[in-house]
């Protein structure tokens, strides 16, 4: 009897599926699927909120999905968007390679897809990427730091906290740093390149170890602002967390423009920060997906040129720094 009921229920579901298979008629509100790999750092939260706010401003419904660092879950979520027949997809990929099957799936369903802040690896699949010019922004930030170092007339020993080197953004920032310090090789010697794989704990351990091996490190650049708290902790433990102008101040620079960096600038601990323009990137991503939807040609890469914020321009640039706008 149970089997009979079960079989009948299965038939009813199958009939229901086939009867509901027609698209609804009449005008409908546009829907964009927004899939983020993670919301682990302030930057991603700010970007996620900015995209949703931009969509709301344009009366577009946002379907949200967070993959929690799992590329396979992201694939399933994007497949769900495709089954929901969304008008477009904006995704932050887990990495440059695992996103490729997702782009292919969106291409096959003729749904435009825009990658936010992290481009895909070399592929035939069609997508648009809105990315910060990691190399140029980092280079400008580190050059500013080097100029500050030059003014003191002292020699500097530098450390860089590297991101996950499978991430093209991390590689761009590393290259920007190396290119900048190369010009000041008589002044600055890089004594530590600390791999963090975007992990705060690894960052803290790495900085502590580097400071033990080279107690005279006096120049630190981090590839992401979210690693400032562990850096501050390690510097405090070493008695080296000093304000600009104080004896023993370690020249500090970062990348992102988050709220911690803003507060450090205001408090006089941070020398310079490369800022990604979250608002520009969000608006550009939404605009690109809408233009792709109507068949317009959109460049495969849209660059956010960003800017450097430092003690000299803090007042005028703070309004453009997203970290200054979010509540801590």
């Amino acid at each position, binding site marked *: 009897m149970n089997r009979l009921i079960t079989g009948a229920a299965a038939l009813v579901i199958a009939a229901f599926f086939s009867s509901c298979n027609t698209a609804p008629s009449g005008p409908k509100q546009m829907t964009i699927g927004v899939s983020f790999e993670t919301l682990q750092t302030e930057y991603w939260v700010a970007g996620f909120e900015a995209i949703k706010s931009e969509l709301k401003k344009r009366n577009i419904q946002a379907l949200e999905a967070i993959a929690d*660092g799992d590329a396979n879950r992201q694939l399933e979520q994007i497949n769900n968007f495709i089954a929901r027949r969304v008008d477009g997809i904006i995704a932050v990929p887990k990495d440059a390679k695992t996103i490729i099957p997702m782009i292919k799936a969106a291409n096959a369903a003729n749904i435009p897809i825009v990658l936010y802040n992290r481009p895909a690896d070399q592929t035939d699949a069609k997508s648009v990427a809105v990315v910060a010019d990691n190399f140029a922004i980092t280079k400008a930030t580190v050059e500013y730091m080097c100029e500050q170092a030059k003014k003191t007339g002292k020699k500097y020993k530098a450390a860089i906290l590297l991101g996950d080197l499978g991430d093209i953004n991390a590689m761009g920032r590393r290259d920007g740093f190396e290119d900048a310090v190369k010009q000041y090789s008589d002044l600055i010697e890089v004594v530590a390149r600390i791999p963090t794989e975007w992990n705060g704990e690894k960052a803290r351990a790495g900085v502590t170890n580097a400071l033990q091996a080279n107690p005279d490190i006096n120049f630190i650049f981090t590839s992401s602002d979210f690693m400032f708290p562990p850096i501050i902790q390690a510097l405090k433990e070493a008695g080296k967390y000093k304000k600009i102008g104080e004896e023993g101040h370690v020249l500090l620079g970062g990348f992102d423009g988050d709220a911690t960096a803003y507060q450090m600038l205001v408090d006089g601990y941070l020398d310079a920060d490369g800022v990604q323009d979250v608002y520009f990137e969000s608006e550009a991503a939404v605009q690109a997906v809408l233009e792709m939807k109507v068949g317009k040609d959109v460049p495969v890469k849209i660059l956010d040129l960003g800017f450097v914020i430092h003690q000299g321009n803090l007042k005028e640039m703070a309004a453009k720094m997203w970290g200054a706008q979010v509540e801590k």
Partner: protein
Amino acid sequence: MTSFTCARSGAAVKVVMEDSAKQRREESAFVFEAKALRNPFVSEYSIFYLTILYFFALAPFTPGLASTENAANIFSNLLPLLIVALGQTVVLITGGIDLSVTSTIALSSVMGAMVMSGDQGWLGGSRWATIAGVVVMLLIGAVVGLFNGAAITIFRMPAFIVTLTTMMFASGLAIWLTKSKTIYNLPPSFNAIGKGSVFIVPYALVVTALLAVALHVMLSRSLAGRWLYAIGHNAKAAVVSGVPVGRTTRLAYVISGLCAAAASILYTGRMETGSPVLGQRILLDVIGAAVIGGTSLFGGRGKVIWTVCGVLFITLIDNSLNMLGLSYFFIMMVKGGVILLAALLDAWRNRLLAGR
């Protein structure tokens, strides 16, 4: 029977009466159990009814949920998860647990990719790459499973701690081998196992169906299946009855490892990438799906069809709430709540069936 063997006049009558009373109690407990199982909340099909109810309740409010495209999507999403959950079901039936499945998936994925990748694979470009990669992946699963089973049965260590440490070791090994990098450029013939189809039937469906049928036959028709249930009901009684408890338990963990490796083949194929963090977030879904289906965390209860229903339900929750645009955190809370309810129901059902 006791009355006839030891009977002597009145004493024999007393024993017969005691036996009859015991038999009546057993019969009444059996009737109680049968009634309980007909109750929709403890019926073995309860999760299937709940899935149907849930689907019909949400379909009118969820655009696209009841489309054939989404049905295909739901089945595509559930197939690899079902394979891992089936392996877990076999272990749960013995009263054990296998927490290492997610790391087995990751380790198999990177080892297979290291063999097959056209960029840096040991057999990259060779026509044997896919076969060798699949064999290596399955071998990894079997070895991890055998290690778990051996540690649990030979050294009498708790399954929880053995599989937890195996999980940490295998996960660390996968990350160390790849230095956290993903491995790309896998052979198209391998990727096809995860994404391709023969006519309209996906290969993944064929693999999953074959595995599910094989496990169903083993559990319901074979001596090994009866041994697995016997161990889960009462391992000491199983030993006394002559069941090779050690060997059968090791078999359960090897099956679980092999299933995790088979799932890894599907996951890796559809992502076209070997990843050291593949499947790291699905452990709750795997155990949750088996328990939601009705497999008992206390051992001795579990069926392939129940796990199929459990996986279907948990995948439908993910799919529908995602399509409704609800936040990830809300989806996690709903899933956590459903799994907790299923575990509570399992504990309640256990007490009910124990006649207390």
